[in-house]
């Protein structure tokens, strides 16, 4: 069976899950989340409550520019007939697998030769693949750095070798090439706002106690965490952060970490997972503890991968706020930026910021997200 047909099956299963969920109550958690949902950032009700929260640390946050035309698929591309190298951080993650799928479709549509390099989330592998890319000398490179600092010399080496390079997702710590990235602070901040809106609508003035399933090694993730806290505390300044645990960003480590956190602080009723594995690990921990219910509190996260959609659209689940990390938007923006770079229309300062679109938890909202980011 081909991977493409597998993806189709997977998407069909996800869609079925959402559709086949028990009928949603008109005043149930999904309805409450949909009513309280907003695409607007909230402002701090009490500036003192958020003054200790660090600002963005991953280097390239807070830009106001929008993706605009970069997200439009053109009628033709300068990449036609070219040899293009695409690197990904790791194909084990749904986001990068979707990126690969989008690029393969673009390669077919616009007639360029695509070679995909898997970094396997390993610094050594990324270093080696940079050497391989230089040896292969493609016409254009869309490079996904693994580490902000290490990527600076890596990109410089490729540029010195005469390659046309753009970077996407995590950014080099210096401005070295055109880039596509997301605002890792404001996107999760919006999730924080929507989580607080839902919490207030469902639980009123009940004190909020926050736990975070974190991945403290990555600056980008720290922006996610701090952005979420900024958003949540903006609307519920009395909320208290009880504990942050290291969930490793993978479900089998996030699950026991969340379970331990719930043991240490049974009063926790708001949990933010820094990615979908973290929130799904939390959901599993709540199930094991017999607390899996929307009456327990609220779970939220960022990523927007398929398994979380089933939770988001279910009245039985406490997961009720999610912003997507959009693989389609990243792919098309990087594709257009790379084309412009090949044509010499960009400088190293050219940047495209794609959004962290908040996902409306209704069936329509979930469907719209899935169709755009994970089309069949």
């Amino acid at each position, binding site marked *: 069976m081909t991977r493409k047909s597998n993806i189709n099956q*997977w998407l069909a299963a996800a869609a079925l899950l959402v559709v086949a969920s028990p009928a949603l109550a008109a005043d149930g958690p999904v309805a409450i989340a949909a009513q309280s949902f907003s695409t607007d950032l909230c402002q701090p009700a009490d500036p003192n409550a958020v003054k200790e929260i660090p600002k963005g640390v991953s280097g390239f946050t807070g830009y106001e520019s929008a993706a605009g035309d970069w997200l439009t698929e053109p009628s033709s591309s300068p990449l036609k007939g070219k040899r293009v190298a695409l690197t990904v951080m790791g*194909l084990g993650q749904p986001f990068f697998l979707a990126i690969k799928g989008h690029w393969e479709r673009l390669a077919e549509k616009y007639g360029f030769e695509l070679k995909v390099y898997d970094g396997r989330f390993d610094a050594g592998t990324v270093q080696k693949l940079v050497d391989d890319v230089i040896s292969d000398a493609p016409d254009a490179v869309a490079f996904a750095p693994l580490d902000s600092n290490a990527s600076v010399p890596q990109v410089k080496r490729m540029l010195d070798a005469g390659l046309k390079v753009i970077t996407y997702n995590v950014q080099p710590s210096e401005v070295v090439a055109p880039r596509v990235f997301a605002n890792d602070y404001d996107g999760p901040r919006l999730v924080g706002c929507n989580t607080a809106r839902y919490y207030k609508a469902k639980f009123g003035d009940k004190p909020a106690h926050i736990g975070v399933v974190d991945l403290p090694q990555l600056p980008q993730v720290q922006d996610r965490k701090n952005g979420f806290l900024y958003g949540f505390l903006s609307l519920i300044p009395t909320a208290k952060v009880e504990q942050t645990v290291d969930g490793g960003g*993978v*479900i089998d480590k996030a*699950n026991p970490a969340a379970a331990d956190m719930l*043991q*240490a602080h049974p009063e926790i009723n708001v949990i933010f997972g820094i990615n979908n594995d973290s929130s799904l690990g939390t959901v*599993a921990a709540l*199930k094991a*503890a017999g607390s899996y219910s929307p009456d327990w509190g609220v779970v939220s996260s960022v990523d927007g991968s398929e398994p979380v959609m089933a939770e988001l659209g279910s009245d039985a689940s406490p997961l009720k706020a999610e912003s997507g990390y959009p693989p389609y938007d990243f792919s098309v923006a990087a594709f257009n930026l790379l084309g412009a770079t090949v044509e010499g229309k960009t400088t190293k300062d050219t940047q495209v910021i794609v959004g962290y679109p908040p996902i409306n938890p209704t069936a329509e909202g979930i469907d719209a997200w899935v169709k755009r980011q994970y089309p069949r």
Partner: protein
Amino acid sequence: MTDLAHSATRRRASFGGWLIADRQRVQTVVTLFVLVLMVVVFGLINGRFFTVTNFQNLARNTAPLIISACAMTAVMVARGLDLSVGSVLAASSVVAASLAVKGVPLPLAFLGGLVFGGLIGFANGWIIVRMRVSPIIVTLGSLNIARGIAYLITPSAILVGLPPRWSDIGTSNLGPFPVPILIALAVVAVYAWISRRTKFGKHIYAVGGNEEAARLSGISVDRTLIILYVLSGVMAALAGIVLSTRVGSGDPNIGIGFELAVIAAVIIGGTSLSGGEGRILGTVIGAVIIGTLSNGLNLAGVEPFWQYVAQGMVLIAAVVLDRRVNEQVMRLGARS
């Protein structure tokens, strides 16, 4: 000296004799002491450590490690090593999950996962024995192969559409006992019985002690080793099923680094890296030490980065303490 004093001395001597008579026993007692010490310290730091729900949580989280570590103990006693267990765990759970998604009844889907684990184990054992290749090389290769298979099987990073009862094994209890720990205890009982009460168990120690001598005494060394690797694969698959039913998904990314935790549990439990020595009970205690450390540090609210440092230090300290006390006791034994 009074009769009472004589009697006390005799009791001490007989306890010391019982302890010293078996070096492995000393090691197990010392490891248990380390565990008890940790439990007491973590309990003093946070009273919630001693709650029933936390012990259930701890038991549920440690079960996959115990299951795989039992099989690894037998492999290491026979002077082997299986680095592929983390990847086999992932691939087997993905096999089971993908079968379940396709509508295969859960027992058969789980059986499919176990068979897959057994096949990888058989391939490991067969190549090691027949081709005379180092187990490190072979299982390092199968580590990559199994992980690759896991990614190839899954359409993307996480399988969705699993039947609702998928999570029953990983999340349900039988009375106060989480099902995963009951499965782990059954595995422990079987391995303890095999290693102490069966001819096959004696063969394992004989092969690990001196392979050539074992061969000359009529033991089928090749068959023993192949069976051990098959069992290691099956147990890794069982651990994968327990883990993936706990987290409620079939995910090819689970179990990364699991092999190191398994090997650490076995070594802390007193199994010799050079083979011929090891005890299932010690391994169980080693696995519980690793699980308790992670759980206790989280409950104590230790910052994540300090947890790495603390985990490393405690593990080294546990092994050093174990060796020191062991040496002291053996010296006492030699003197008496």
